[in-house]
């Protein structure tokens, strides 16, 4: 590291450190009991029969934030698809089938259905227990990639039609937006959770539109992660420089 940067880092870091420490000393004591927004959120969640308050915040009270959040994922995946395309001097090669040690193969194929099922369970129970579309989507999508570990890239590609997952990714976003716009059409507000009955507390169908938004996010996240990993895997396995360059 050159001297100028070290100097800048020392000055800037010291200044910012002093500021942050002073701010920490002024913060309310850790573990304090004053959380006005949090208390309101719990009341609002119970009023709409949603057991998991975090799901209520994510898919009802602050559902508009979640729209931004899923759009970030959507945009990042689209960005990665564009950035990880074949460059002008590259081509695609068929990867060689890979040897997999037998215990790994057995374990992977055994765990694969369990992982997929767990993912779906976590998505479906988003408004009841910790979890939801984001968490379950990631579990399901990475679970699918056990196939890459247990068999090889070719096997993964056969069960993973990329076009399907790309479409599912964008349809997840579309579904979320349509559910949101339904509120505007009904004359209430964008993403208003007033169209469906709130159901019985602590059951799968409770919470009005929350399970639907949750499912849309789950579909989007699972597909987006599959597409994302596919493009990184392609870079590692398939795309290579054209010979003679």
């Amino acid at each position, binding site marked *: 590291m050159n001297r*100028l*940067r070290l100097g*800048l*880092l020392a*000055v*800037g*870091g*010291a*200044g*910012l450190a002093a*500021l*942050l420490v*002073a*701010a920490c000393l002024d*913060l*309310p004591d850790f573990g304090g009991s*004053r*959380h*006005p*927004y949090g208390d*309101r*959120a719990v009341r*609002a969640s119970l009023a709409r029969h949603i057991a998991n308050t975090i799901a209520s*915040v994510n898919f*009802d*009270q*602050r*559902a*508009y*934030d979640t*729209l*931004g959040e899923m*759009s*970030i994922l*959507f*945009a*990042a995946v*689209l*960005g990665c698809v*564009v*950035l990880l395309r*074949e*460059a002008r001097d590259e081509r695609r090669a068929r990867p060689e089938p890979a040897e997999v040690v037998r215990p790994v193969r057995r374990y992977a194929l055994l765990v694969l259905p369990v992982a997929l099922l767990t993912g779906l369970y976590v998505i479906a129970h988003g408004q009841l227990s910790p979890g939801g579309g984001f968490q379950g989507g990631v579990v399901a999508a990475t679970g699918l990639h056990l196939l890459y570990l247990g068999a090889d890239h070719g096997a993964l590609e056969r069960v993973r039609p990329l*076009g399907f997952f*790309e*479409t599912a*990714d*964008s*349809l997840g*976003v*579309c579904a979320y*937006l349509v559910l949101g716009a339904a*509120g*505007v059409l009904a*004359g*209430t*507000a*964008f*993403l208003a959770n*007033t169209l469906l009955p709130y159901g019985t507390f602590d059951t799968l169908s409770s919470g009005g539109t929350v399970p639907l938004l949750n499912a849309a996010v789950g579909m989007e996240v699972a597909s987006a992660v599959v597409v994302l990993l596919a493009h990184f895997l392609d870079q590692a396995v398939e795309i290579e420089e054209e010979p003679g360059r």
Partner: protein
Amino acid sequence: MHHLIPLLAAVPLFGAALLVATGRRLSRAAAEITGFVFSGGTAALALVLLLNSAPPMTEWVGGWLPVDAESVGILVVGDGPALGMAALASLLTLAALAYSWRYFDQPPRERTGSFTALMLVFQGAMCGFAVAGDLFNAFVFFELMSVVAYALTGYRIDEAKAVQGALAFGVVNSLGAYAMLMGIALLYARTGELAMAKIGRGLDAAAGPGGPDALVLASFVLVLTGLLVKATAVPFHFWLPDAHAVAPTPVCMLLSGVMVELGSYGVWRVYGTVFAGPGGIPAADLTRALVTLGTLTAVTGAVMCWYQRHIKRLLACSTVAHTGLFLVGLGVLTPEGDDGVALYLLGHAGVKAALFACAGVLLDRFGSVDEHALHGRARRLRATGVMFAVGAAALAGLPPFGTALGKAVAEEAVGGPLTAVYVVVSAITGGAVLRVTARVFLGLGPRPQEAEYEISGSDEEPETSGRLRRIPDTMTTVPAVLLAASLAVGVVPGFGALVARSVNEAGSGGAHASVHWTGHGLLLDAASTVLAAALAGLAVTRPRRAAAPDRAAPLRRLQSGHVGDYVAWLLVGAAFLGALALPGVLGG
């Protein structure tokens, strides 16, 4: 009407999702038309809402109307500045899409519409950020805007410069965003709220007789660090020349025309609603901080701009200079300052996007954006040359362009020596662009010498599939329309007054200022235009004396292209910002 405000973000996102869903089956023309429909529809929506924005609207997304003045939902605001920025972002996106119509090379081939989809997401993100009334929601859209911008900047992956510039952009902006989130967390700890206005009231209620404390100062510094990184204030600005010089031209039009300005807008919004009360940062401290940083930014940007030969990089540096001027104008905290900046910003957006569009024409025709290599080669491109010259003069502040009106109003508001900063900085940036016009489009003067520490703009790849032989009509019409729009900001009677009224209605504590051309302002505008012409003339006829690049070498060496340096400067900037605002906390 107010229920429609969140759709400003939702409609373009929906268009993007549709494009990706159908991307493998669409023809390019169909994808582009879809892009126009959604982008244009959003622009129309923004304009309709804007016309209905007096008195200002607010909307609780999800219908969470406050009960006993308390809500659990997210607030979006529909006042003049918010909807104005959304309309500006939408119209510029439409212009950029029109500019890239048919000719702009858009890989990957098997996924038609990816570029258009990214542009639509970018538009939605900018609109969402503009109308955000909730601090965390602002952060979310801020990040969305950044993420798309990184991908678009690195779009041409075959270019070594593009991927490097995009990474520097990504790292610095993300770090800024995380600093902002730290600040939001501190504010939440103090007030237990996320809506900006509620945080502001919470700070006022929590402030003791001693006024603001270290926590308020730290959250102010952290939140502003994020916004100022986007607004490219010195020393947070290093990423901008790297990113804007390498991004595809239609993207540059948006980055320089509106995204950077959204950073300044964010500073105005956040200070006005969160920190302006008695429990926030005293006005004198904000003025000190913004005027100091703004002046430094303006001067640095102008010097960097003058010594560039890479035309897109030159334009990028001039954006740095102009955002410095915006920050100075906002920093004085007067209604006139806000009005001047609003008009300046509108005029600047049109001019800067038009100039980038013209630079893109050079790139696609000659495969170069180097001032020296192109010396005299673009004589035939008369229309582009004329527009480049007009854009240069407008940048310098030639009446009656919108830039000139805004500059004059802002100059009046800042007063004193800061007026000189406005005149000189706009003259230097305008002069630099005029110099390029004279050399590239007219072939005037001797060919300049090579310097040691600089980037040339030759051997770049055109953005069309192969070099253009004839310039398509869209690529000349779009900059012409943009320049005309910038002119309209200055000449349409009553437009200035309308902008001023809607800005003052939303901020400035209800004080109204009148905005019109004055003799004093016209004189200053004329002075900066003449100065720009003189500088350009001097540079062209006496290149050794006026434009010896080695003189600015120490400053240019700081622009090292090294991510680590930029991060170190970001920390210094945050500490400096804290030091500038410290007296109010100590003295309270």
